[in-house]
Structures are given as C-alpha cells and as structure tokens.
C-alpha cells in the first residue's frame, strides 16, 4: 500500500526534487496513467525494480524512477502518480502535470486499462494537449480478452496520431514493441501526426485571443495553447501556481493577467466555471467517441462475476462480518505462526550474544564496555528483531494478498460511513488495518488518502490501533489477571483479549478522529470518490518479494536504527549507580507518585519511557527493573511472570491500567520517525506524540480513581 520507493534501494530516488535529476545522455520517459492500470507493474517489468504495486488507487505519490537500456540507448523511466486528469488540484496531479510540462521528458507513455479504455483516454487526450511525444500503452490486454472486450489498436493509433501498443505487464507481453515505440518517439523519429484536441467555437475563439501574447511571453518554453486553455478554466491562480516553473517575471505575469481580464468574455468566476465545463466535457466527449469507434464488447455483462462478488462482500448482512472474520484469520495466523520462528531467532541471538560477549572479554574489553555493547545494544537489537520480524513477515504478505486481490477498497467502501461520521476518509479504514501490523507502516500508508486534512487525521490517529508489538503484552496480562493464568480458557481468552483491544482501538480511532476534526483540524470532509477496481488474480511470487522487501525489511531497518542506541541507554540506566540505587530506580522513584495516580507504578511508566524504540521491549524492561538484573530478561513461563508481578504489588487494576496505557500512549520511535518523514513537521510529530499520551493519561486516571473511590479494590 504505501511502503514503496524508499525500501527498494539502489537506482531509485524519490521526492519532487528527484524529478529533476537525470543520468547524462539518457532519454527521459515519463509513465503516466489512471490509478490502477498496472502502471507500476509495467515500471517494474521495464526496469527490473520491485516497486510496490497494489490493486487500488493512489499509491505513487512521488515519482519513482528507474533505468533500462534498449538498442544501445539509456532510458530513465519516471513513474508518475496515477491520476484521472491533469486538471484538478491534488498533489498527485500537480506532480504529474509539472513533470510532463517541465521535466522535459523525451516521451510520455500513457498507460491505459484495456478493460476501461474510454475513461483512460481522457487522460491521454490531456497529455496530448501538452506534448505530442506520446506513446499509448494499452495494458491488461489479457483481462480485456477474458472479459471479451476487443480493441482495434491500429484504429486507435490512427485516431490519436501516436503509436499504440497493447501489453500485459504481468507477463511482460508486448514490452519489446513498447520499447521500440518509445525509442521512436523519444528520438523524434515518429512518423505520426499527434492529435490536437479541438473544442467548441467559443472556446477556440477565446484561445486564439489569448494565445499570441502567451507565446510571446513564454518564448516556446511550454505549449502556449495548453497555457491558454488553463488560463481559461483555472484563471489567474494558474499563472501564480506556475510562476516559478515558467520563469515568469512579475511584469509578464501582470501583462498576462491584464490580457485575461481585459475581456469580460474571458474572465470572471462564473465564466471560468463555464469554460471548465465546456473544456472538460469536450475531452470526455472526444474520449467517448474514440472509445466507441475502437472498442467492441462481445458480452455486455462482462463485469458479472465482480458484481456478484461485490454483492456478497459488501452486503448489509455479510459485508462487515466477513471482513471481521478475514481480519481475524489474518491475526490468528500471524500470532500463532510467529511463535516458533520468534523463539528460534531469540535462541540464535542468545547464542551469538554469548559468543560475542566471550570474544569481547577475551580481547580484554572492560566490563562496562561488554555491558553497553553486548548486554545493552546487542541484546536489545536481537530482541527487537526476533519479536518483530516473524509477525511482520507473516502479516504483510497476507495483507498484500488482500490488497492485490482488490479486497481492500471494498473494506474502505464498507466502513466509509463510520469514518464519514468521524469527519474522516473511508480509506482511513485501510491505514488502520495496516496499523494493526505496524503503526509505522500504517502511517506511510496514509499517502493513499488524497486530501491533506483527512490524511493528517489518519496519520495522527494511527497509533490508536494496537500493532503486532503490543498484542503480546495485552495477551499475557489478560491471561494472568483476567482468567488467572494458563488453563483450558487460554485460547479463547487470548482471542477475546485481542478482539477487545482491536474493538477499543477502532472506537478510539473514530472518537479521536472526530475530536481532531472538530478542533485543531477543523473543516468539512472533502469530496469523496473511491474506485472499486476489478478483482484481480494476485501474483503470489511478487507479493512475497514485495512485502518482504518493501515493508518488512524497511520497517525492521528503521526499528534497528532506533533500537541500537536505546539498548545502550537502557543498559546505562540500569547500571549507573547514583548513591546506592541505579538511575532506573531513581527515575522510577520520581515517577512513582504520578504513576500511582494512573493505576500504574513507577517502574512500569519508566519501562514505557525506555521502551520508546519498540513496544515489544516494555515488558522485558519492566521485568529487568523488578528483578534488578541489569539487563533485559524474559520470564520462562506465564506463572513466573504472574508471581513476579504480584510480588511487586500488581493487582487486576494495575494490569487493566497497563493494558489501557499500552493501547493509548505515545507511538514508538520508529513510528514517530516515520510521522516526521511523512509530515515534515515537528509540530505534527509532537501532536502525534501528545494526543494518544494525553488520552492514555486521562483514561488510566479516570479508571484508577473510579475503582479506588468505589472501593472495588
């Protein structure tokens, strides 16, 4: 869903700035297209990179780039965000439009979905308006064939005046022909005469009034006809927006604006709206006409199977239960399946730790260095890797599978109403689901929400759903204090604990989203459109590679980055002696009065603070402090853990408040780092830290005081 470019490493760069970089001598090829046309799969097939693809709109927000060689020529391929048009104002459309206008691509490949050609042609026509150096790639030809849709490609090529190539990016069919066409267009040897879309007489007249002065001012830096059209349907703000790229001096800007406003025929908001309608309608109409002349459907009801499946998966009766069941299965497999590999990994790390420690001491290292490096840094690293890696390696591929099948947009469809009531976006349901796997991944996935306000809400509230790392704390505490340890009730009780945590996480997400949008993120929900793409057969091999590379290793990498220094800090805190007590004991002592108010104790609160790098190490740190072992330790059995906790004054209230605080406290360092990278704002990162923490403090305080006042304990 979201973890894309950063993780795939070599040869890839990202960000708006990256769009300006090129390899000298390379021909630059932009890849444009509607969301969900297999654009990214095509990008991967051409460049051999594994950029993440998903069967639903809105993933590539920044342009990924890769290279390929063909007939001795180097090509730099830029994957533009998927958009329906280049006219509206979303960040994705701006990135795509700006690159086509100012990135000086030698060719633009417009990727179209063969099963939905007409709508895709709208974008193709808009690109043609900017540049004639276009290759139309009609992708997903196999799907079209299966749905008995046939497309007359030569005729399409004639209509548009550009080369048209039919492809199946999934099995690399047609790629050679595509490369050939791109080479032809990019090297300027195309025999075609590209179509220039024409409009109604009034529009054409208006364009001819504006175009000469534009051409004079811009001196051929960009297609003046296109600028004239945009001035008509977007008005002066368009010029303002493009001032930097167009290298417009203020006097030029004033002159053009004056030219526009001179004539009441051209300007004014009402007139602008009329132009917008006329221009958009003409293009849609042209796309419809071309579509009609080249597409033939043998079978009108070609979407029959999809609709039947939709009726089941989104039905009033079964839609939501089926969704919960699916999610439940995913969790169950993750938790059950991760146990064994986690233990094996932990054993491996323990073995390595002993060897490493022995070697270090044998080399004459002092005890404190051994402590910091081996018992601190290495043990924490090993811990984080062995508890995080297996669940993620299981959860992410399963999630990606659901994504590839096309099920996830249906989840957003099912749940949108709840999010609407919270003044948020239905796609937040998906970022939330992703958050169950890992909040950092959940935060990145918020890129799929295209309006900034709703995206920020999703980012700030993602932490309210418990990630994989928090389930073990919740499960063990629930088992110990709610059902009295292991026994026949263990499995159902664990399941109930997880379910309870999930439900309360979802409710908190909705409540906090609503609060945020009524306070610091005020505003009406922006317009909502959600495409429900056709169900597709997933490519299992690709899923495994992608989810492991893109998500698992990426998140793990960030976790390791923050865990290593934290390991040193934890060890130091536990071992620096300050007048007879360790730093950790002192800290816990200071926190004790406050922690007591929250139903916790100083050590638990201290463990949450020191456990900032990863929720998985909170309990080990608490145990370390209770046992005063000086290094993180794991209890052998649940019963041992129970005895240890009870010995240190735990009651069911302590457990309950710890569970509440687990669900509602600051995001882990990996997530915070990710929030900062996504929002580029310290303010929002701080907000993301404070909102759940404040919620947790209020909740725990209320519960603890109420229970004590009522004398329940």
């Amino acid at each position: 869903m979201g973890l894309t470019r950063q993780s795939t490493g070599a040869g890839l760069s990202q960000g708006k700035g990256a769009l300006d970089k090129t390899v000298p001598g390379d021909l630059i090829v932009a890849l444009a297209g509607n969301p969900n046309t297999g654009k990214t799969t095509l990008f991967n097939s051409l460049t051999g990179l594994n950029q993440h693809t998903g069967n639903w709109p809105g993933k590539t927000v920044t342009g990924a780039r890769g290279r390929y060689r063909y007939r001795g020529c180097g090509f730099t391929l830029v994957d533009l965000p998927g958009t329906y048009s280049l006219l509206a104002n979303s960040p994705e459309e701006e990135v795509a439009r700006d690159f086509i206008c100012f990135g000086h691509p030698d060719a633009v490949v417009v990727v179209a979905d063969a099963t939905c050609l007409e709508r895709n042609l709208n974008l193709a026509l808009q690109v043609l308006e900017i540049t004639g150096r276009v290759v139309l790639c009609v992708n997903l030809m196999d799907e079209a064939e299966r749905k008995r849709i046939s497309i007359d490609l030569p005729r399409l090529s004639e209509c548009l005046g550009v080369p048209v190539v039919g492809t199946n990016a999934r099995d690399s069919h047609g790629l050679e022909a595509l490369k050939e066409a791109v080479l032809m267009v990019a090297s300027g040897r195309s025999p075609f005469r590209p179509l220039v879309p024409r409009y109604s007489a009034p529009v054409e007249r208006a364009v001819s009034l504006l175009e000469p002065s534009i051409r004079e001012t811009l001196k051929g830096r960009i297609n003046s006809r296109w600028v004239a059209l945009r001035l008509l349907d977007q008005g002066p703000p368009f010029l303002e927006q493009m001032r930097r790229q167009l290298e417009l001096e203020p006097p030029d800007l004033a002159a053009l604006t004056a030219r526009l406003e001179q004539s009441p025929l051209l300007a004014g908001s009402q007139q602008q709206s009329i132009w917008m309608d006329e221009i958009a309608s003409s293009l849609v109409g042209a796309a419809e006409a071309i579509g009609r002349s080249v597409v033939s459907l043998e079978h009108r009801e070609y979407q029959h199977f999809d609709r039947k499946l939709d009726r089941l998966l989104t039905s009033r009766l079964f839609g939501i239960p089926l969704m919960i069941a699916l999610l439940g299965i995913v969790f169950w497999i993750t938790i059950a399946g991760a146990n064994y590999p986690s233990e094996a990994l932990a054993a491996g790390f323990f073995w390595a730790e002993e060897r490493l420690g022995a070697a270090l001491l044998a080399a004459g290292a002092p005890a404190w260095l051994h402590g910091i490096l081996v018992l601190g840094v290495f043990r924490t690293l090993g811990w984080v890797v062995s508890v995080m890696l297996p669940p993620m390696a299981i959860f992410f591929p399963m999630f990606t599978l659901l994504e590839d099948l096309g099920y996830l947009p249906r989840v957003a469809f099912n749940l949108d109403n709840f999010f609407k009531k919270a003044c948020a976006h239905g796609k937040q349901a998906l970022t939330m689901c992703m958050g169950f796997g890992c909040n950092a991944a959940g935060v990145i996935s918020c890129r799929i929400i295209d309006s900034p306000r709703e995206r920020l809400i999703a980012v700030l509230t993602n932490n309210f759903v418990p990630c994989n790392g928090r389930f073990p704390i919740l499960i063990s505490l629930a088992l110990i204090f709610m059902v009295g340890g292991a026994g026949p009730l263990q499995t159902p009780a664990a399941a109930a604990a997880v379910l309870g945590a999930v439900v309360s996480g979802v409710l908190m997400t909705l409540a906090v989203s609503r609060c945020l949008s009524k306070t610091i993120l005020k505003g009406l929900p922006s317009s909502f459109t959600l495409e429900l793409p056709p169900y597709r057969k997933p490519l299992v091999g690709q899923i495994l590679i992608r989810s492991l590379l893109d998500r698992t290793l990426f998140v793990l990498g960030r976790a390791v980055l923050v865990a290593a220094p934290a390991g040193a800090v934890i060890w130091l805190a536990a071992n620096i002696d300050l007048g007879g007590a360790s730093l950790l004991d002192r800290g816990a002592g200071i926190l004790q009065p406050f922690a007591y108010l929250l139903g916790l104790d100083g050590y638990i609160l201290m463990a949450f603070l020191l456990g900032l790098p990863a929720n998985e190490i909170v309990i080990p740190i608490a145990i370390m402090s209770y046992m005063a072992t000086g290094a993180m330790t794991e209890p052998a059995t649940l019963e041992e853990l129970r005895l240890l906790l009870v010995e240190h004054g735990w009651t069911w209230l302590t457990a309950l408040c710890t569970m509440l605080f687990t669900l509602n406290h600051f995001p882990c360092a990996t997530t915070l780092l990710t929030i900062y990278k996504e929002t580029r704002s310290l303010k929002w990162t701080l907000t993301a830290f404070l909102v759940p923490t404040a919620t947790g403090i209020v909740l725990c305080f209320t519960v603890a005081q109420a229970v004590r006042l009522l004398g329940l304990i």
Partner: protein
Amino acid sequence: MAQPLIPLSELPPGRRGAVRELKLQGISRRRMLDLGLIADTCVEVLLKSPAGDPTAYRIRGAVIALRSEEASKILVESLA
C-alpha cells in the same frame, strides 16, 4: 420526455440515470467531470454499502463509490 430530475442519491440500485445537471462547484465539480460525469452520461446504480452510504455507481465502465453528499448534487433523469 420531460421527466422530473432527481438526485442520483435517490435512484435505487439496479436503476440507471442520465446526468442532466451538476450542482457542485469548484474542485468537487472538477472531480466529477474528471470521472466523466458530464451531461447525458449514463450512470448505473450498482450497490449500497452496508450502512447505506456510500453507494457504488458504474460510470463509463469504472465502478466508483460516491457519498450521498456528492451524489445528491448530481441531478439525473431516471432511465427505464
């Protein structure tokens, strides 16, 4: 021919309508135009989500879900 215009949100699933008027402005209007919702476009109501809103429509071969806020501002003529 002169059938009354009704909001798209009131068209029941299974029915089709022809777009006659968009009462949206600004970016929302542009979004709808980009989806191909121009005058005379035929829209088929496919299904409602479990809570009754949003609703999925077939628009020019694609399946697009719209909330009632938007759909109520798209006036259509019901087709047989």
